């Protein structure tokens, strides 16, 4: 490689680091900053949850967080711990809150067992049909991004799908729920570890 080539690679690497380290967020001046106090006890002020069962909101596409809040508030997605807060966020302004978290940098994934990640990668083919190979999802089809979500949270959602306890009876989710019934319980943790490890 030429010196120039090395420099370009180096600059590209630096740009990548800056892209991760410097979010397009105005922090406390963001109109959603104080409104997000309703979420921060569990999700962190910047949405960078560090608990295995609490989803990361940082970098979550605004359309998806908005949908989640609306579904929690209406009871369509039943969750005793989320419903009251979702109603609060709707009152405060869900767009501001969703945009605020979307602008925060995604944290590095929590540590995972590499063997579980590898088993999950192999087993993830059926998921990839909708969510993509690495789990990035497809906003155009309303398919959420799974990457970097804590493994415990992903596993819990799979169990809720399987038992039809997440958005019960929702026709657009019948395929994913049918798929979950074909996956052995032991494999849930591997799948969760794989998508949790992706960025």
């Amino acid at each position, binding site marked *: 490689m030429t010196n120039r080539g090395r420099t370009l690679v180096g600059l590209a690497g630096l740009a990548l680091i800056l892209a991760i380290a410097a979010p397009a967020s105005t*922090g*406390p001046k963001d109109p959603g900053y*104080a*409104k997000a*106090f*309703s979420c*921060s*006890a*569990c*999700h*962190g*002020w910047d949405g960078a*949850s*560090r*608990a*295995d*069962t*609490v989803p990361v909101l940082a970098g979550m596409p605004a359309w998806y967080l908005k949908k989640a809040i609306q579904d929690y508030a209406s009871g369509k997605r039943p969750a*005793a*711990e989320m*419903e*009251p*807060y979702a*109603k*609060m966020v709707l*009152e*405060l302004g869900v767009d501001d809150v969703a945009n605020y978290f979307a602008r925060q940098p995604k944290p590095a994934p929590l540590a995972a067992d590499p063997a579980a990640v590898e088993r999950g990668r192999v087993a993830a083919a059926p998921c990839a049909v909708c969510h993509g190979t690495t789990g990035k999802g497809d906003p155009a089809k309303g398919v959420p991004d799974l990457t970097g979500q804590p493994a*415990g949270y992903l596993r*819990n959602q799979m169990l809720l799908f399987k038992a039809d306890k997440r958005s019960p009876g929702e026709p657009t989710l019948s395929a994913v729920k049918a798929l979950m019934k074909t996956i052995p319980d032991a494999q849930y943790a591997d799948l969760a570890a794989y998508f949790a490890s992706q960025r």
Partner: protein
Amino acid sequence: MTTMSRRAFLRSSGVGVGLGLAGGCAPAMKGDFAPKRGPRVVVIGGGWGGATAAKYVRLGDPAIEVILLEPNKQFVSCPLSNLVLSGVRSIDSLTFGYRGLRSHGVRIIHEAATAIEPDTKRVRVGEGYLQYDRLIVSPGIEFQTEQIAGLAEAGDQVLHAWKAGPQTVELARRLQAMPDGGVFVLTIPPIAYRCPPGPYERTCQVAWYLKHNKPRSKLIVLDANQNIVSKTGLFRAAWRDYPNIDYRASSKVVKVDTGAREVTTEFGDRVKYDVVNVIPPQRAGTIAVQADLVGADKRWCQVDHVTYESVKHKAVHVIGDSTIGLPVPKSGTVANAMGKICANAVVHLIGGKQPPAMPPVNVCYSWVSDKEAMAVINAYRIEGGKVVQIEQKLTPGQSQAFGQNALGWARSIWNDILG
């Protein structure tokens, strides 16, 4: 109690604001020992409210200097500390340092504030003082020991274990040392007190421990209130697993006799114990009383619902368990919420701007066994400048999944306070 002197024990138990200075303060702390060079917020108390407020002032405006006064060098979480009594968790797993706050630029002085001078905007610390632009007081609760005859004289023979720390560990030890067949007596004060569901969670944890380790023992709960004051139906359901609980409502304890090993209720009923745990009646932390921040009841502090500024003294804000008048419980989640909302208001006020009206949130998880938990969730709004509740919701029963969520909540909120 073998390796710790009584004085050290009491000090680390947080009994009496000001004892942290008993060992003398640094010689440098005389006069204006840290002259103010720009806008400054002083925070009194590094618990759930104060530590959160200190961090969020720095997050909101790094140009504001923040000094946190907290005598204890470590933060011990009250939430989850009932699990230390049942042996499910260690106190070490609930103990954290303040390094994270320092990384946000909070200056921590491990001394107690001894007085507040609102007129000159000074906080006294030993022989010196600190100047402030805005003061955030988060002193927690103090016990009204004088309300129960014999309690003050009993000293460490009667434990509250209502401020997590050495008393929690010692009460767990006494429970473990109690012979099978022994009687554990837990007394609950009248509301308002810190953590409304806490005594009933403690009931579950002690009963769970006895059921598995001392099956011939029983737990007598003497509650000053007419009924379980929080999550009543859920606790009643949980207690079906514990026939060893003898719950007696409207049984306010007014006397403890360590010689006879018995407590007496206001109706004269005497109850013998092998191990006793008296949770005394409470009021705001001593500094709030001394600084005339409490209301006519001489117990709790009234505040503005948007800024948490004291209704009695300008530029002095009060948060956490020592406040009253908002329709919120004295919970860790609420103290954390008040900490960030108050911090944001203070940042706005120092910057000459109108603070936004942000409502608090609440969730109280209660552990009913070693693995299962349940919760009450509250959402609020601000209406006409006052906090009002939008909704209260209970989890549909208890479960291990809610236990997982309770752990997730704890890890997250500890990080929100200290990380």
